[in-house]
């Protein structure tokens, strides 16, 4: 990704879908390919990926390797900074995992499986390594492709990105870190008098 020009996702994806075939059997995320309509049985892969997450949930929707990937993806959406912790510390991946485990929506579940697989393929295409093994800048570069092309909602990886951002935002800003550390929310307590503006504009 040497060029600074925005990447046309529709052109590029032919390439990285091709490389995926070549790379199959190597160290790809052990995820079954899923088409949109196929109901996804709860068969989390057990292949021990090298970068399996340490926050491994029990009986979750995500397999350990998927969970590790979601942690890094969500942290790329909302990273830690000097002001407060990011999505990883706020355990956003656990929230998403729990949400999907309970979901009735097989299409949504399938989109997550497929999306995780496709994002990892993109990472391997652009950087020759998995998303989890990439540097923060490399991770940003992959998601930037999706963000720049987020009008292409016919593509599953784009729909996945939108869904990833939606649930990351929801999980983060409803967490203790999001509400108290990041936003420094002042409400939800007894308030004798609403302060408002000194000038009530009645002049």
């Amino acid at each position: 990704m040497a060029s600074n020009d925005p990447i046309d996702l529709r052109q590029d994806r032919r390439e990285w879908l091709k490389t995926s075939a070549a790379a199959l059997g190597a160290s790809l995320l052990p995820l079954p390919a899923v088409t949109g309509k196929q109901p996804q049985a709860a068969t989390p892969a057990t292949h021990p990926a090298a970068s399996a997450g340490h926050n491994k949930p029990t009986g979750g929707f995500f397999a350990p390797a998927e969970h590790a990937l979601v942690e890094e993806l969500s942290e790329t959406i909302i990273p830690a900074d000097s002001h407060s912790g990011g999505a990883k510390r706020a355990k956003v991946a656990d929230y998403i995992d729990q949400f999907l485990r309970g979901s009735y929506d097989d299409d949504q579940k399938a989109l997550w499986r497929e999306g995780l697989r496709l994002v990892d393929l993109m990472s391997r295409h652009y950087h020759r390594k998995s998303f989890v093994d990439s540097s923060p800048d490399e991770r940003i570069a992959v998601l930037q492709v999706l963000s720049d092309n987020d009008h292409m909602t016919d593509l599953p990886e784009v729909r996945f990105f939108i869904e990833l951002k939606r649930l990351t935002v929801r999980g983060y800003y409803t967490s203790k870190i999001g509400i108290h550390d990041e936003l420094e929310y002042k409400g939800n307590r007894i308030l004798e008098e609403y302060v408002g503006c000194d000038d009530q504009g009645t002049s």
Partner: protein
Amino acid sequence: MSEPETDLTKTYDAVIIGSGAAGGMAAHVLSSHGLQVLLLEAGKKLPIEQELRSMEWPYDNAHRGYLPPESHSLTFNEYTIRNPPYGAGLEKAQHLRSYVGSSDYVKNIVVDERENPYTGTNYAWVRARCLGGKTNIWGRLALRLSDYDFKAKSRDGFGEDWPISYSDIAPYYDKVDLYLGIMGVKENLPHLPDSIFQRPQKLNCAEVTLKQSLQKMGRVLTQYRAGVTSEGLKHNKYRSRCYGRGACERKGGCDIHAAFDSPTGLIYPAMDTANLSLRTNAVVREVTIDPQTGKASGVRFIDSQTMKDYTVRAKVVVVAASTLESARLLLLSKSRWHPNGLANSSGHVGHNFCEHLMGPGVTGRAKDLIGKPSTLDDGRPGGFYLARFRNLSEKQPKFIRGYGFEGGSGCSMFPRGTDTHGFGASFKEEVRKNQGAYISMGAFGEVLARYENFVDLDPVVKDKWGIPALRFRYKFGDNERRMAEDMKETAQEMFEAAGFEIVHVRNRVLTEGWSIHELGTARMGNDPKTSVLNQFQQSHDVKNLFVVDGSAFVNASCQNPTWTIMALCWRSCDFLADELRKGNL
């Protein structure tokens, strides 16, 4: 308050169907007149404080305050591209809720759509079957109507005038204000009459900026007139005053009942008179008719849990099941005397159906507030109301009637602005720095009451209890579309004039029904040929039948209806009690 076993063997003075704003008010007024009253509610009596949990932090909730993921609440997209009944294709969801049911605090208050299907044109029909109905979760904006509404036909020629004037209902608005409590500021506007207000909340700084800018245009922004008691109500032990606790923005209600709801505001105090009996889980399927006289003799209902059928007798039947359910019940109550449905010799039951148009609006940022430390802005029942300014002294060339805006500004528990494009460190910082600078408002406009917009009974589809479903034949028209265009333009102009940076202008009109202000399906009038009820919400055809909810409205106005529903109902029930005493019913 105790809840005695309901006696179904005696003849009540009045049976009331529905326990929302109208049914609760009817129960309050009739029981204070000493009548023996039975109140029937189709839904459950919920442990409402446990449902609402107004101060629960999202992270202490298993679903972060959202609907559990095994259930589904309908989206704008689904209301648009699917057709009712909306359950088809969503069978895998454990429960299916209307769009309002997207919160964990509301999920048991709104109905399961699959148990309560409807058919016809697209409509976002929000129903709350439980004691108190939608008042448990209402938006709290409590506005009066004026003669600009009651005499709208005299002004522009469209539709019909109401059979009452503002002076007829004003004393009853006063009674509602004093009995239930309302916060606000006097503005002396002829088209938005003042209430008897308790101590108002304040505006925040972006709202003041907008207010001052609008003053130069001759437009009035006022504090949200909330049906909330800021000073407490000495006569009511079930309600607390408002403590500005800050969960008012989320979908849910007030678990200390500072905001009005029908059970604590009206029904429990009425039960303390010992004149009121309550039966929940009573799905009324028919108003029964005395075969000798053609008058109402009582009602037939199904216990929603046991599915057993019951009848109960009453001298007067008071229908308060909500605009659409009341119309449905009248149409269901066919008899030899009333082959066209009850109270329907005019053929107007279900027709002249109207409401408020929603969707157009604007979001902006007050630049001077960007990057400031966070402030407490959601510790109040609402932000502001911008009063109607169209078709008052001037005449718009493109549409008749008017609209107002509801809006607010500042920090909230869940930040505004998470729809900011992009991701990463800059996204996070932008959300944080802008969180207190956002200001937004959305319009509520009058949808014209047209005979052609109506509901009737579906010949095939039935609900869980075997009762024929309602079928919608209802669409916004050209006046609404042209008004929506104007809403969008004026919203943007007003924000630009106030110096706000425009973030987003919304021109999308939301699905019919979205405002949850459905009205007009059994309108009042002086002529029995073109109206269902007289000025006291009494059926022209059946003297001992009253319909006291929003179905009696002659037009929708653009002001929120709840306070008017209750004022009208109070007036009608005073009349009812008097007529019953005189033996005229």
